[in-house]
């Protein structure tokens, strides 16, 4: 079982949080496409607003379709509760916003998504929240970076796009030793491949847009409250352990315990920031979630086959996937394989890489990952283009790096498509030699 359900993961993905409703017996989760909900009475309205009863008030805060997705994801990750948001970035923002205030500090892995680096390095800095970036698998560096005002350690379970696997148990041990929670963006792993809470994480974030949705049709995010962190004992989290004035002095830790963070996000971030997931997007994302395990098996097996195939191609300079020469912690954390992302470089550098991407016919050159279709991108000129040269190096992004999100197409067709790209790259190399 996960720590939140006695059902198996595939059953959770299909059934958790919804049973056919009584009026019409809809087997699929209905789309509650409504902004608001009629109250039985003034007293009931008052009770809902004052958290004296559960239910729905306004779809910026909660929505029945979104709630099914939340409860399913919380159960899959073994959390105490979940809050879905408009995007993965907003999920990260509300997590940081709920744990940190002006004057606080975050310790983050260097090898993370470009927009997350921007959020941590520039956007939060405007609110006087600082961040120190470290090699997250260097526990001495993590420990040394923690300050009196540090509120969380952050990493991606598989870094984007460097694909470094974070040693979650070791990082959690380091963070917990100093009373700090570990927040993990597990987008590249999905709940199918790894459940960070089982390995010491306290908060898990996903861009649900990616493999969980899986079809490239809806943007969304989720924050899952692991429910294991003792916010009071830590002594660092007044947002959770001190009275919250806007809710008549509500003390989230005292009243909701393991779900304190989720309730704080619900009561504050969803109300004040309003980065809500739409019910239609929740419905689309639920369709993806229901087949997550089946798709992930094909994603991973295709990725492993493509890695092997690329390693055999003359035009390829290097290939990177976490399963290549996997470290012990990678094998332990990802027994089913470390995802379907890979990076590689072609001989001839950036120009040859560009030729590779431009020659592809089946694969799509776009700024997304985790679609069922194979996707490619040159991060140095797109997702990570706003980073300095030094930050690019720290993030493990060379000029020739091509990022591939391997899809679930028939393997030979992906190989044939990549063959087109490699031939185009080889031509660039030949031209470079002639010049």
């Amino acid at each position, binding site marked *: 079982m996960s720590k939140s*359900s006695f059902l198996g993961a595939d059953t959770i993905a299909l*059934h958790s949080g919804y049973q056919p409703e009584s009026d019409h017996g809809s087997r699929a989760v209905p789309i509650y496409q409504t902004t608001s909900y009629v109250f039985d009475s003034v007293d009931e309205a008052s009770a809902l607003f004052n958290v004296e009863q559960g*239910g729905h008030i306004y779809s910026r805060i909660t929505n029945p379709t979104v709630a099914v997705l939340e409860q399913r994801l*919380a159960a899959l990750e073994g959390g105490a*509760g979940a809050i879905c948001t408009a995007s993965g970035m907003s999920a990260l923002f509300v997590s940081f916003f709920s744990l940190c205030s002006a004057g606080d500090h975050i310790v983050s892995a260097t090898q993370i998504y470009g927009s997350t680096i921007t959020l941590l390095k520039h956007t939060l800095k405007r609110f006087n929240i600082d961040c120190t970036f470290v090699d997250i698998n260097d526990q001495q560096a993590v420990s040394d970076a923690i300050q009196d005002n540090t509120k969380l350690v952050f990493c991606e379970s598989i870094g984007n796009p460097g694909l470094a696997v974070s040693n979650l148990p070791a990082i959690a041990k380091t963070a917990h030793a100093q009373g700090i929670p570990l927040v993990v963006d597990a987008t590249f792993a999905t709940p199918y491949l790894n459940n960070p809470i089982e390995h010491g994480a306290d908060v898990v974030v996903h861009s649900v847009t990616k493999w969980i949705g899986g079809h490239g049709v809806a943007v969304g995010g989720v924050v899952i409250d692991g429910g294991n962190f003792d916010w009071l004992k830590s002594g660092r989290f007044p947002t959770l352990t001190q009275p919250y004035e806007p809710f008549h*002095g509500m003390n989230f830790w005292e009243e909701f315990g*393991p779900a304190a963070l989720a309730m704080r996000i619900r009561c504050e971030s969803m109300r004040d920031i309003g980065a809500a997931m739409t019910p239609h997007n929740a419905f689309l994302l639920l369709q993806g979630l229901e087949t997550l395990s089946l798709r992930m098996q094909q994603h991973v097996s295709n990725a492993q086959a493509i890695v092997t195939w690329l390693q055999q191609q003359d035009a390829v300079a290097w290939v990177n996937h976490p399963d290549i020469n996997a470290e012990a912690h990678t094998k332990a954390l990802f027994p089913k394989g470390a995802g379907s992302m890979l990076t590689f470089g072609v001989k001839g550098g950036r120009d040859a890489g560009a030729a590779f991407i431009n020659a592809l016919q089946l694969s799509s050159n776009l700024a997304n990952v985790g679609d069922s279709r194979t996707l490619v991108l040159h991060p140095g000129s797109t997702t990570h283009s706003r980073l300095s040269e030094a930050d690019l190096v720290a993030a493990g992004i060379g000029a020739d790096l091509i990022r591939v999100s391997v899809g679930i197409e028939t393997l030979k067709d992906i190989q044939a498509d990549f063959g087109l790209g490699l031939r185009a790259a080889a031509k660039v190399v030949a031209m470079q030699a002639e010049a």
Partner: protein
Amino acid sequence: MYIQVDNAITFIATGGKPFDASLPTVVLLHGSGTDHRGWALQARWFAFHGYSVFAPDFPAHSLSDGEALTSIESMAAWLVRALDTAKVHNVHLVGHSQGFLVALEASTLLGDRLKSVTALATASAIPVNPALVETAQTNPKAAAAMMLQWGFGTQHQYGASAVPGMQPIGIGVRIMASNPLAIDLAACVDYNKGAQRAQQLATIGCPSCVILAGQDRMTPKREGLKLAKDLNTQAQVVEESGHMLLMEAPKQSLKIMKTFIQSVEK
């Protein structure tokens, strides 16, 4: 709020408002291995509607320090000392499962301070399978999981939640696994005065309310009906709920609780 009882810091949930002993006080008593958070929603309603709420974490449970109490009788005596410390005079006892055994026993100690008793998902005796007690002693997490798998009804086993986005099973596992579940269960096994206490309450005419769960496999409905008979009251049954009634059906259980307590206060 935190108060000192028997030289130990004790947490009393007050439903989000400062405690006022001059108001009629709804005393919410948690079950084996759980804590005040099971009452989170009901507590807030009472606190914001003219009552004071007194929902303790029993010693060594969640936010309270101290040594775990080993018998229902000692828990009842401790409760009365806690109520004395807070100068509570006007008491409506509400107990879930083991919490109602404590309420039954405390009823003999409160005299005319007691205004009513309300039972949720319970019985006058709570026998516990010895294998569960043994598991709770050796592997509390496994025992908590066993109890919650048995304790929640069908809807919640399928991930339902009265509070959108939450996972009551996940919350329950975390709370129960760190509390002295084995000691609580052993105290339930040993307690055999429940029927007698219930009959005494009926004899003195103490107002009582019994709320049962149709899918309760921990304290089956038939046992709760016997309790209602001993209390000389009619039981009300929430058919779609399991044993974790206060979390599974907070709205329905609150409606019955508040209707009853309001009627007593009138």
